[in-house]
């Protein structure tokens, strides 16, 4: 293997960015940022880069991670400013196609919880808040949730529905989950295993989840990182800020 699980997650997310996508990343999103870099620089995907930084199309080669993914110095030389207000209006009009969301819990319906563990009023753990989750879940045709692959994260039912997954699947929107073990896709029949990260087995995927995940006959296995992929990730995050998300 040529990378840690974090790096494989980045590759997994990068491969979901397609030609013509209009992609937006939010705060606390080092993995999505590196996925966007990889998609553009290594896979040559022709997508539009927007973000919470409000820098439209920064100079990708100069993107560098910092402890904030809202930091304008990390995505320099944009073509111009595109405000978040503007980007979210594009979402309301169906023109923002792709968004990444973290989750403290994600469940069998694809609901995510970023609000509180243990209920709103007496939270065992207060979470940072869903930010745009509740607004964008009903609007964006392709959402990629990223989360740590553990039973207390991949749950049967979230404690609080910050972002509702079921209406997405019902509308035919793509609703995907990248973990540090696998890529899972939500379908009308529930979550389906689509790809294993390098070195991960189906059993590990199932055993480390408290939700039921369907396993189809054929499951892709991700190729390990190529030297180029690894080099590009390192170039844009030389200090390993991406590992602060503790995905392994």
């Amino acid at each position, binding site marked *: 293997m040529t990378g840690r699980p974090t790096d494989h997650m980045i590759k997994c997310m990068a491969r979901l960015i397609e030609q*013509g996508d*209009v992609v937006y990343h939010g705060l606390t999103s080092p993995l999505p940022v590196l996925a966007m870099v990889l998609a*553009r*620089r*290594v896979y*040559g995907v*022709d*997508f*539009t*880069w*927007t973000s919470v930084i409000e820098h*439209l*199309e920064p*100079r*990708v*080669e100069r993107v560098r991670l910092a402890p904030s993914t809202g930091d304008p110095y990390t995505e320099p*030389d*944009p*073509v*111009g*400013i*595109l*405000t978040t207000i*503007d980007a979210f*209006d*594009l*979402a*309301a*009009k*169906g*023109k923002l196609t792709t968004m990444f969301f973290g989750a403290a819990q994600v469940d069998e319906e694809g609901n995510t919880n970023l609000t509180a563990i243990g209920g709103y009023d007496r939270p065992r753990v207060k979470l940072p808040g869903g930010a745009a989750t509740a607004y964008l879940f009903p609007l964006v045709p392709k959402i990629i949730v990223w989360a740590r692959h553990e039973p207390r994260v991949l749950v049967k039912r979230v404690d609080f529905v910050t972002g509702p997954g079921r209406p997405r699947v019902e509308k035919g929107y793509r609703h995907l989950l990248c973990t540090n073990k696998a890529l899972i896709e939500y379908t009308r029949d529930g979550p389906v295993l689509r790809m294993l990260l390098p070195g991960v087995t189906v059993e590990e995927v199932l055993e480390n989840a408290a939700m039921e995940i369907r396993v189809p006959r054929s499951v892709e296995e991700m190729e390990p990182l190529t030297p180029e992929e690894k080099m590009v990730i390192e170039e844009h995050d030389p200090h390993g800020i991406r590992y602060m998300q503790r995905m392994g």
Partner: protein
Amino acid sequence: MTRRVPSPRLVDLDYAAELVEPGSTVTISGMTFIRNPVALVAGLVRRGVRDLCVVDREPGFALDVMAAAGLLRCVRAAMASFELYGLAPTVRRLAESGEIEYIEDVCGAVIAGLRAGAQGVPFMPARGLLGSDLLRLHEERWGTWRRIRDPWTGEELVAVRAIEPDYALIHVHASDPYGNAVIEGPRFEDELKIRAARRVIISAERIVDTEELRGFMHQLSATSIHVEAVVHAPRGAWPTAMPGLYQADYDAIRGYVEAARSGRAVEWVKTNLKRLMGGSG
């Protein structure tokens, strides 16, 4: 490998004019005699697209040219004025004779409708408007406004239905080949129009390389996400003004008015067509 995104969409005037379907609703940039998309309108005149409806707050020269060339079925505007030269001469004549439908709107309501269109919501609440005879027409005849109540206080307001024109024709100072575009000086509602319209066609005084935009930190009036086609049209607002670049040509406008008043507006347009197309012909 690094690509710029998305693909360029720089086209010529004829190509842009072909994009506009007969029967559709069009909004145009600027105001009376300022930053009208005259070159794009000249393209439509040359092609002879029919049955268009124009929706705008305070259109002037370009609107009247469209009317004179027989392109219009209806006009929805808060004011159609040639200012001290009087009403938009052809629009006035065709509205009085009933040859075009004239929907009189109100500035604040046009803004509200474009805002709803730009934000992707079906309507926009607006203050003002109550008490005018226009309210009944918009509610009962045109279905464009409706009285609603604030769900919290019960206060009566007007809901303006979203305006989402089929096309926005917008003349700007500079654009890259992708539609990342900059308007200088007054914006009017053009940034809303760009966001509210289903398809956006830009004409630009200057086509710039994307690299030239970097570092200026412009809050872009239009972006590649919004724009479908870009036409290079230097002096493409003539005879209307392009703030910072050239002034309105009042002699030409007066010439047009005089021609229109004696029923020769079409001739004036034909005679001046090449010039109206700016440097894009």
